[in-house]
């Protein structure tokens, strides 16, 4: 039995905030990103970043951490009162990690929101088109080829992220080629099905490699669970250009996502080029996701939880969902990472496990509050 994605609609979501019976005279205004929510998102990012910098095995006062950061700005000289080793913890150890968490969280949440719009399915996630399986295969191949060379170090050396990135892109490209094989009718459903096939194929390749190189199992496993432990700014440098590109393209096209939600015929009838828009959006979101996966492994559910919560709170227009997903996605993952490295310190929980702990029940709630309607 098949369920068309467009048949699943949210029920029980709060009434539209613009629908205010106490003020019947005032006509409602169009959906847009409300300044209040934007401000809330910025505050969330700042607070999450400060918490991520200040808290840990050595907890430092928020004010001093903020002062230490401000001191980095050109022309600003503030004595934060931190000792040199404390300042090193903040700037050398925690800052790259917090920045990476912000970038990865923002990219995954943005890509998830984008895919949900492109595929008109509220449960679409950024790994849908084979990114996860492709990256997993790439990483496994690199680790297996390295043999025991990288063994012992949980942080993979640079070739693993690059191999994961390449694998992810290869998988998405293959998905797109297969999805286009049907001819002119490159519908969202065709792409999704191609994604399923490609994911299965790459997962099989990965399993085959794991069987052949059983000694790499441990490393691959820890990579798959996701982690934000950095070795300085290298990961940030790798991710940044792709994250910026993905954000720029998706945010510029956010109004088109609202039009695409009407369906392809309607979007074309309104003067859009739905296949071209979808292609651009999918390429941008996939590039961002592939880069995020390459540096952090597979961190699940961020791309579903964050855009969904934002949609429920701030309205269903992609014009607000996408920018807010960037902010709250970054904040969410920074806090999740903080929890991952503090709850069972000095041991670190894999962050993918933590987001799945939060995400799986959330997923069930979403499923229970959506219903199918016959249209």
């Amino acid at each position, binding site marked *: 039995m098949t369920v068309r994605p*467009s048949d*699943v*609609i*949210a029920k029980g*979501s709060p009434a*539209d905030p*613009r*629908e*205010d019976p106490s003020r019947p005279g005032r*006509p*409602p*205004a*169009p*959906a*847009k990103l409300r300044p209040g929510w934007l401000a809330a998102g910025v505050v969330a990012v700042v607070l999450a970043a400060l918490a991520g910098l200040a808290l840990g095995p050595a907890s430092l006062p928020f004010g001093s951490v903020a002062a230490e950061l401000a001191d980095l700005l050109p022309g600003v000289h503030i004595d934060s009162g931190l000792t040199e080793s404390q300042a090193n913890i903040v700037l050398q150890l925690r800052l790259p990690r917090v920045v990476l968490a912000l970038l990865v969280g923002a990219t995954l949440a943005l890509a998830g929101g984008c895919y949900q719009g492109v595929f*008109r399915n*509220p449960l679409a996630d950024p790994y849908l088109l084979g990114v996860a399986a492709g990256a997993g295969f790439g990483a496994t191949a690199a680790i297996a080829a390295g043999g025991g060379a990288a063994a012992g170090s949980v942080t993979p050396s640079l070739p693993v992220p690059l191999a994961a990135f390449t694998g992810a892109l290869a998988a998405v490209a293959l998905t797109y080629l297969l999805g286009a094989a049907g001819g*002119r009718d490159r519908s969202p459903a065709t792409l999704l099905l191609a994604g399923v096939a490609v994911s299965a194929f790459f997962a099989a390749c990965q399993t085959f490699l794991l069987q052949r190189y059983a000694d790499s199992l441990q490393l691959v496993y820890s990579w798959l669970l996701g982690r934000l432990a950095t070795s300085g700014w290298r990961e940030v440098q790798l991710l940044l250009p792709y994250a910026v590109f993905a954000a720029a393209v998706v945010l*510029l*096209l956010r*109004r088109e996502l*609202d*039009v695409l*939600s*009407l*369906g392809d*015929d*309607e979007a*074309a*009838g*309104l*003067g*859009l*080029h739905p296949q071209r828009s979808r292609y651009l959006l999918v390429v941008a979101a996939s590039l961002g996701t592939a880069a995020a996966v390459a540096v952090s492994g597979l961190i699940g559910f961020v791309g579903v939880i964050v855009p969904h919560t934002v*949609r429920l709170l701030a*309205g*269903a*227009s992609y014009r607000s969902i996408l920018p807010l997903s960037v902010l709250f996605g970054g904040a969410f993952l920074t806090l999740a990472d903080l929890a991952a490295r503090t709850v069972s310190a000095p041991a670190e929980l894999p962050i993918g496990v933590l987001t799945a702990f939060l995400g799986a029940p959330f997923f069930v709630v979403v499923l229970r509050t959506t219903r199918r*309607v016959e*249209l």
Partner: protein
Amino acid sequence: MTDPLLSASAVRISGLDVVLGGTPVLRGIDLDVAAGEWVTVIGPNGAGKSTMLRAVGGLLAHAGSISLFGKPLSRLRRRERARLVAMVAQSPAVPPGMAVLDYVLLGRTPYIPALGRESAADVAVVHQTLASLDLSGFAGRRLETLSGGERQRVFLARALAQGAPLLLLDEPTSALDIGHQQEVLELVDRLRRDRGLTVLASMHDLSVAGEYADRLVLLDGGRVAAVGPPPEVLTVDLLAHHYRAQVKVIAGEHGPLVVPVRRAGLTPPG
């Protein structure tokens, strides 16, 4: 009857062929629709009614030529086309969580710069459109909370907000009871008179089709089988031949009324 003052051509179709998935669906269609005219396409299931509307809307690859208001469809840019023709599909998608106002505002897309946002004028057009369709009270409501009749009016509002002089309506009332059916069709008729719109529709209910349209086009097997004012098309012989239906045609105040009757020669079971 067509008003001679409005006889400028809104749609001119000649030699239109459409092939979908290797199957010819429309073959050699010729049709002229005058500006301000209401033409309804009828025909048995699979005759090509929706395909013809989608082709006129510029949504399908085709052979032959279609021009809208004297401009060849193939030469129009997408946005130009969207300002000339607006279409309401048979069962449009209902985007979850979207408010009526935002839905209708999407109809202004052809006027909004690619990376820009709507102007105050666009919002004003939307409010006017909602008011003229008696929908102002629904502006903040989510689309999925509306009844079928209300939704159909909202779909129509989105098409009207597009400001196009040609309206394509694919089975606009097939999901509605007869009361709401009349309400929507009277509304369309009023709007086309007020705004000078041209309407090209497809319908299943022959009596209703005949009551509202200036002319009917009977399609069968992808070809035009008959075209003309309703009394010339809704005849016992034509309907028997093309629908394989046995009907009575009764003269009505606004056009012929078609009533299906039991086929002769078949006795009820038992």
